[in-house]
């Protein structure tokens, strides 16, 4: 097992976690837990003697963690790795099953922007309400009130119900309250994903300030590697509820990106999609420049009665949102009728996605149902390039896809 980088010593520990596990009980056989009394009673009547067959699922398993005061630690990992559960346990929203957590200092947690904001209440009322929900005393909010309003830039609309706010204003106000939380430990989930770029920067700056000046510990979950890189001193990589790595951001990021590939290595005989290789200019790669071509080679291991087989590739962004989907029959009328076919290639002449990391999912179907779906089979990192020949390099600010356009004007 990997030891924490810092073992706790004397007074500078902010968070100490030992042997933390969180288990959820789930009903076996894919059955939902009975949520009405009738169902519950019925289940009991049907099997009066047998206890409900349950299965234990460990969202977190034996986590050891030490975080010092003044540290900003990023928590990364795939969806379902246990990041959110860890934050929830640390912020006492849910309880651990086993283990010990000691927190040295007040904890403020920001798992969502504007928790408890009420649309009918005015900006002023919401500042007080939200502040109280985040754990601030009324006197504390009072002294910070002007700073909060100033940070959000909503002076004019203080006495307007927030339901009349634009979504930007709403987020800014909610964030402003949170940014003025003066706890020694701050726990932040992926909340920076909302709000405009400008304001995000302002928030990040504020957070950085806080950790530098006041020596507060910040725990931070994000899928955005750029933010993690900018903000954090250390990173914790979670995988299947366990700590996979603690240490430098660089190494953690690399391990994280590699990890997305592991399903690729695990080759199961029953799987008909055996692998996916990406090639750029005939060299296997996971990087491609914007506007360049990319070839995907899908290895197949089809069953005997292969018929009407069509293959699709889905591009998903860091948030798991589907960005593009390509499919053999739709794109080129390619349908496979023979089990002896073991390789399908797909040429994508121009990758017109904004720079970033995309996960690729391969789907195998027979025109009616999906036969097999393999998530995280590969990832592709799209790198910015001057594709318009104007010296401009597109970034995530441009949206999700890149469009070519011809501009002109009269005269």
């Amino acid at each position, binding site marked *: 097992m990997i030891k924490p980088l810092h073992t706790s010593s004397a007074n500078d520990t902010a968070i100490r976690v030992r042997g933390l596990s969180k288990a959820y009980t789930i009903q076996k056989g894919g059955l939902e837990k009975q949520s009405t009394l009738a169902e519950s009673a019925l289940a009991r009547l049907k099997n009066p003697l047998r206890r409900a067959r349950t299965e234990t699922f460990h969202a977190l398993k034996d986590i050891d963690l030490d975080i010092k005061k003044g540290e900003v630690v990023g928590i990364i990992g795939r969806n379902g790795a246990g990041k959110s559960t860890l934050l929830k346990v640390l912020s*006492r929203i849910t309880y651990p099953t086993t283990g010990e957590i000691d927190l040295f200092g007040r904890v403020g947690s920001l798992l969502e922007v504007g928790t408890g904001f009420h649309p009918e209440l005015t900006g002023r009322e919401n500042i007080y309400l939200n502040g109280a929900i985040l754990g601030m005393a009324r006197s504390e909010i009072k002294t910070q009130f002007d700073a909060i309003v100033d940070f959000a830039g909503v002076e004019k609309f203080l006495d307007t119900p927030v339901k009349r706010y634009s979504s930007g204003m709403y987020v800014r106000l909610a964030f402003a309250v949170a940014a003025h939380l003066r706890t020694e430990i701050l726990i932040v989930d992926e909340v920076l994903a909302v709000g405009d770029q400008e304001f995000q920067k302002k928030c990040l700056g504020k957070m950085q300030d806080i950790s530098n000046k006041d020596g507060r510990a910040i725990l931070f979950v994000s899928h955005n590697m750029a933010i993690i890189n900018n903000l954090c001193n250390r990173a914790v990589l979670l995988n299947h509820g366990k700590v996979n790595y603690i240490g430098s951001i660089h190494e953690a990021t690399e391990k994280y990106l590699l990890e997305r590939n592991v399903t690729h290595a695990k080759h199961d005989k029953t799987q008909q999609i055996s692998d996916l290789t990406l090639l750029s200019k005939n060299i296997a790669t996971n990087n491609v420049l914007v506007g360049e071509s990319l070839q995907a080679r899908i290895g197949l291991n089809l069953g005997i009665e292969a018929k009407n087989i069509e293959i699709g590739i889905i591009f998903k962004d860091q948030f798991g949102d589907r960005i593009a989907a390509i499919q053999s029959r739709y794109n080129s009328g390619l349908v496979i009728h023979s089990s002896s076919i073991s390789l399908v290639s797909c040429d994508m002449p121009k990758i017109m996605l904004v720079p970033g990391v995309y996960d690729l999912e391969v789907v195998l179907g027979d025109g009616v149902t999906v036969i097999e779906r393999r998530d995280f089979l590969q990832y592709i990192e799209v790198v910015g390039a001057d594709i318009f020949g104007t010296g401009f390099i597109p970034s995530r600010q441009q949206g999700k896809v890149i469009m070519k356009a011809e501009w002109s004007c009269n005269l």
Partner: protein
Amino acid sequence: MTSADTITLNTDNSQDDQQPREPGVDAPKPTVSIRPPKRWQAIDFKELWDFRDLLTAFALRDVKLRYKQTLLGAAWVVIQPLMGAGIFTFVFGVMAQLPTAGLPPFLVSFAGMFAWTAFSQTLSKTSGCMVANQNMVQKVYFPRMILPLAQVYSVLVDLAVSLLLVAVLLAIYQINPGWPILLLPVWMLALFMLALGFGMWTGALMVEYRDVRYVLPVVIQFAMYASPVGYMLIAVNEKVPDWAAQLYMLNPLASLIEGCRWSMLGVGELHTGYLIYSLSLSVGVFILGAYVFRGMERKFADVI
């Protein structure tokens, strides 16, 4: 920075005996220690006190929100009990002509409604508050008991207005309740405890089983007719056989609501035995409800 500086989850000292895995380090005492919860959790009054600002904030929110976007606004606080008492006066006073021991039927109904509203509002609000605030329960920590307690606050605001109305009515009808009025807080406190106890219990249950939401209103309605709200205990004693009246008194609300009316109007049929029974049941239900709530609290965020 004063409010939550010293939150401790476990006031239990036995936790401190478990040595941390690195002995020899003279570690400072943690502000918060999180441990797997035990089946029965003590009620942490200190922590509740630390979060008193949140309690006020929740209560203020509810009071402010109640009459937003209504034409008559806060006037509803006055109109609602008057309407309720009016209906009861018509049904029990005018149509059924139940005995009122010489009191004007409207006043009898109004005093009954005053006590009943305190109970029923508290019960229905506390039982629903966990589910109504589920988003918050899943996203932020605070002692969960703050939510049901805040509901009492907002009921109290309505009651204060009703109490003024009672004073006005007493002046109009020229009734002086005398010293019994001093005991009004006792009955009210018992009613609140009873309502909170049931409310926390059903509220915790509702987190897992939403059926409670549909059953409770029916039960509350039944309880209203089974309690001396629109009529007095004297009517029960006169109209029903003795054994049924005794059965009727097993409803803890019977003595408490009659007690409230007696305190406000100076007339009522109170029985010390039943009063003690109602008062002790209220305290018992409150304590039990609070412990059940604490016991189920740890599951709220996972189940809700």
